[in-house]
């Protein structure tokens, strides 16, 4: 798939809490088609220290509106700059990168989407697509606290959503892997979130013989498979998260 490099214009900024914003962007030209689970590399300008682009998963993509959205959580200088952008600002974006989630071949499977914190971002675009395809799915999102559960209304508009919080402020108290909905039967799992959470989900999937794919976020430089910095050790040796992933079947991972 051809990759694009363009200065996108910010059309909307929604502050979701103290550390996270939703950035919506567009371009005069048609954006390339982006698949759920793919990501973009956003260039950070005008900071005295940041050099590398920031890989951010695609939260939503609307070809008709020619609009793309990203959830950006502030963790350092680069994301702080991105989170400070306002409507009308330009951001240099490299996209679409990586491979998306595998789409189910038909609609007879019961799917579970498990997200953790800002890692729930790409699951929104995935849920939109699954709904559009008529798939049967449920969403489970965990976070430290209710304020760290992003875009609840929007997720809930797509289907059934359950929550866990570590402080018990919303949904069941504890981790996603302790949630009662995991007693139900699922045929396939998609997960994205902090690595310890995804490892716990992978463990649950293996114990219950459920196929599962996870979206990784290893530290990255080029995003194009050239620098070999973001490798994950797989059953077939080191693979690039940027080009071989970011989505991997857990069967490939040495977790």
């Amino acid at each position: 798939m051809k990759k694009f490099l363009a200065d996108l214009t910010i059309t909307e900024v929604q502050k979701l809490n103290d550390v996270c914003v939703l950035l919506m962007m567009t371009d005069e030209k048609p954006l390339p088609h982006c698949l759920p689970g793919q990501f973009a590399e956003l260039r950070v300008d005008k900071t005295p220290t940041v050099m590398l682009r920031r890989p951010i998963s695609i939260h939503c993509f609307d070809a008709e509106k020619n609009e793309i959205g990203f959830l950006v959580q502030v963790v350092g200088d680069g994301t702080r700059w991105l989170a400070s952008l306002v409507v009308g600002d330009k951001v240099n974006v490299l996209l679409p990168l990586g491979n998306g989630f595998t789409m189910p071949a038909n609609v007879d499977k019961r799917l579970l989407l498990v997200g953790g914190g800002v890692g729930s971002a790409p699951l929104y675009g995935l849920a939109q697509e699954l709904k559009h395809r008529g798939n049967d799915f449920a969403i489970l999102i965990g976070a430290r606290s209710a304020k760290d559960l992003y875009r609840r209304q929007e997720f809930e508009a797509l289907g059934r959503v359950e929550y866990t919080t570590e402080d018990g402020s919303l949904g069941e108290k504890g981790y996603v892997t302790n949630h009662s909905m995991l007693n139900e039967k699922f045929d396939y799992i998609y997960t994205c979130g902090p690595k310890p959470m995804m490892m716990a989900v992978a463990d649950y999937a293996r114990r219950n013989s459920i196929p599962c794919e996870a979206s990784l976020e290893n530290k990255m430089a080029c995003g194009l498979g050239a620098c070999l910095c973001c490798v994950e050790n797989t059953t077939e040796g080191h693979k690039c998260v940027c080009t071989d992933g970011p989505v991997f079947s857990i069967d490939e991972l040495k977790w």
Partner: protein
Amino acid sequence: MVKTDVKIGGLNLKNPVLTASGTFGYGLEFADFVDLNKLGGFIVKGTTLNAREGNPYPRSAETPLGMLNAVGLQNKGVDYFASNIYPMLKDLDTNVIVNVSGACIDDYVACAEKVAALDKIPAIELNISCPNVKQGGMAFGVQPQSAAEVVAAVRKAYPKTLIVKLSPNVTDITEIARAVEGAGADSVSLINTLLGMAIDSERRRPLLSTITGGMSGPAVKPIALRMVWQVAKAVKIPVVGIGGITTGADAVEFLLAGASAIEVGTANFMNPAVTGEIVDYIENYLERHNMESVDELIGALQV
């Protein structure tokens, strides 16, 4: 029309813009952003006789206007390159140069011989300066005698243009440059990465799995410029300048310091289209300054 072509040993470059090994993959990764045939050439990632898995993750850490890497020469080996990658590159209208590395002299020689058999590869860049492998690599490049030994052995086995990539992690880089010139190198390229380190103070742990790694990016440019300036005065063979080149102006600075060509490295991660932009900048620079040829820029620093 300005003349941008330069010569490195027997190698004719249509312009002085190359890419640094390990930052441009096999070129094809960047084909959506830059016309590869527009470049003077590109240097494919470090290739060794046998396949290497490289170092464990994490292999990179961003530092202020720079980065550390500890990839450790991950590659599938020279035979894989010859049978799977070379066929996709051989018809390009540019110079594809292979960066050759090894753990011992025999491996360097065997790898260079296999690359010599590939008709459309006109040159190799001998990496005697990788800081990220335990055996070989930088160990060869930090002493004049061992540097000369490996270059002399490869020189005997490799008839085409031989560029030797030098380590900045030495007391006097001009001494190494002279040693490899004496051993038959057609050109020297410099600098490889500077040995560096980054620590996560909260976790009290190093950021790289290997603790130390190679530093690159705009932060190293002044050091690279200084070393290119020193080496260009010390040797008669052409010098290829590398180190933090991010803009066309940076490239011109290296030419002024005495480089006959330049390699763009880490900047490819910041802007995958940057190499094409640097080619345009150099042409435009020559026109703006009423120069007919890029030769007029090489070593033209007024001091």
